[in-house]
């Protein structure tokens, strides 16, 4: 699959504050992002013949009906939740390389007016598995991941100052991005003054809760060369995960060597092999930042530093856009720019490789994108100019 497909179109709605996208419907936001992506690519709606989703996906029948797409040849969804964002590009590439479709839309969107994601686990249905955590007060993902963060601190000496550095480095990128939700600079003092939600996670360790949609168009590299934009080549996109990770935050019985991680190690290894590159080749990384602590654990799982060294790695300034060896979440990430199920990270990687990013990394040629650490599957994506 290496180097046979490319991202050729990019479209997004504004990143709205939670609930502020009303009265637009979720399908309307999705449709707007798709139409923008098609225009950006220099294609027409009638060219779309496939959808590759994640996190439950959307109603292909309704999208086809309302957008006027003549025929769908491929419609599939990666299982799991936000873990599939980066992997949905691979699903699209698989459809194209296998000849099932030619122009495939990958789209992520959320609207949190009725149910905020911060407390989403408290709204899960009663199941035999959920009965083993529902009494304990793990009301949201940030509360669950706090347990992994605490274990990481215990095992490796990671500190809240390390989490603060992730929050501040990513905020610094949002400050210079007009699209970002939070543009006020954050100091160490600001971080430590923030309310503690689920110790050790304070407010600034949590991502934003936005409404919005981001869509990209994937097609064959051959066809991409004739389109309007410089193709952003898909070198690799893998998903899955090891049994030791499993249901992860809903299970909490991961072996000790896996517990305080992002669950990405197995996927990272396959992704680098599939793309034919090493961590040192990556110019910028868009790391799924639902929580600061999970950025640190993903940096370890993707081999930018050794296991347990994520704290010292970020403390050295490595992920800073100015002066760091690996600029991370250059748009301000989901912590400070906008949260759209990780598709914001795909968007920013494409912008960086086109050379059109607001906070452009000089000579960015290779970008890593990760999907959200959660239940299997998790996923990763490597893109190139």
């Amino acid at each position, binding site marked *: 699959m290496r180097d046979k497909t490319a991202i050729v179109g990019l479209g997004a709605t504004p990143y709205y504050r939670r609930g502020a996208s009303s009265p637009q419907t979720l399908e309307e936001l999705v449709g707007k992002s798709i139409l923008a992506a098609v225009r950006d690519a220099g294609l027409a709606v009638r060219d779309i013949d496939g959808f590759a989703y994640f996190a439950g996906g959307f109603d292909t029948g309704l999208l086809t009906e309302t957008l006027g797409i003549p025929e769908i040849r491929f419609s599939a969804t990666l299982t799991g939740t936000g873990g599939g964002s980066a992997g949905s590009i691979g699903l699209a590439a698989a459809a194209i390389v296998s000849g099932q479709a030619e122009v495939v839309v990958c789209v992520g969107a959320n609207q949190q007016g009725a149910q*905020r994601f*911060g*407390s989403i686990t*408290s709204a899960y*249905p*009663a*199941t*035999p*598995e*959920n*009965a*083993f*955590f*529902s*009494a*304990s*007060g*793990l*009301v*949201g993902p940030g*509360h669950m991941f*706090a*347990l*992994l963060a*605490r*274990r990481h601190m*215990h095992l490796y000496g990671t500190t809240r100052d390390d989490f603060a550095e992730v929050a501040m480095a990513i905020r610094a990128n949002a400050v210079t991005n007009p699209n970002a939700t939070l543009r006020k600079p954050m100091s160490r003092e600001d971080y430590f003054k923030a*309310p*503690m*939600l*689920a*110790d*050790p*996670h304070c407010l600034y360790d949590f991502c934003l809760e936005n409404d919005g949609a981001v869509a990209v168009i994937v097609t064959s590299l051959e066809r991409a060369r004739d389109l309007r934009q410089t193709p952003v080549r898909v070198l690799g996109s893998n998903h899955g995960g090891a*049994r030791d990770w499993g249901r992860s935050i809903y299970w*909490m*019985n991961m072996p000790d060597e896996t*517990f305080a991680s992002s669950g990405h190690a197995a996927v990272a290894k396959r992704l680098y092999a599939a793309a034919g590159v090493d961590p040192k080749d990556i110019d910028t990384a868009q790391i799924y930042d639902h929580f600061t602590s999970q950025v640190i654990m993903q940096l370890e799982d993707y081999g930018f530093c050794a296991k347990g060294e994520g704290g010292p790695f970020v403390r050295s300034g490595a992920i800073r856009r100015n002066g760091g060896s690996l600029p991370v979440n250059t748009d301000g990430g989901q912590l400070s720019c906008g949260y759209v199920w990780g598709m914001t990270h795909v968007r920013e990687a494409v912008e960086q490789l086109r050379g059109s990013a607001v906070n452009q990394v000089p000579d960015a040629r290779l970008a890593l994108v990760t999907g959200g650490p959660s239940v299997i599957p998790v996923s990763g994506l490597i893109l190139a100019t």
Partner: protein
Amino acid sequence: MAIAQRPPPELFKLSTNAWTQPFWDATQHHELLAARCADCGQVRMPPTPFCPCCQSQKIRWQSLSGRGEVYSYTIVERAILPGMEAHLPYVTAIITLDGADGARLISNLVDVDVAAVTVGMPVQVVWDDAPHAGVAIPRFKPVEP
């Protein structure tokens, strides 16, 4: 000093299947069970239809002492749902259960100063009857080592 409370009781929603029912039945008389594979001895938590090591479906239910230690924890200090305020702070903890080969339970620490909680703290089960669900919820409090 802030004593750890119990999370809002309405958060607990019981649903069972044939594989988890014995665990919850035992809680009615305050007994903590582990599902141990009757063929290879592997413990799985929560109980599921197959042993991940040998794929056997045979379970030998093992009665546990209710002792264990804190594997990790989070102190919840702020309400993000209506009605949470009256129950703060509470401590959600993962407990490594004694006698269960490292199997862990997601639970709470109660009757403890939240500032005194540490990873590795020895604990003992306490039972909170949940009449609306017809079972009891295992929670934990610190004990002397």
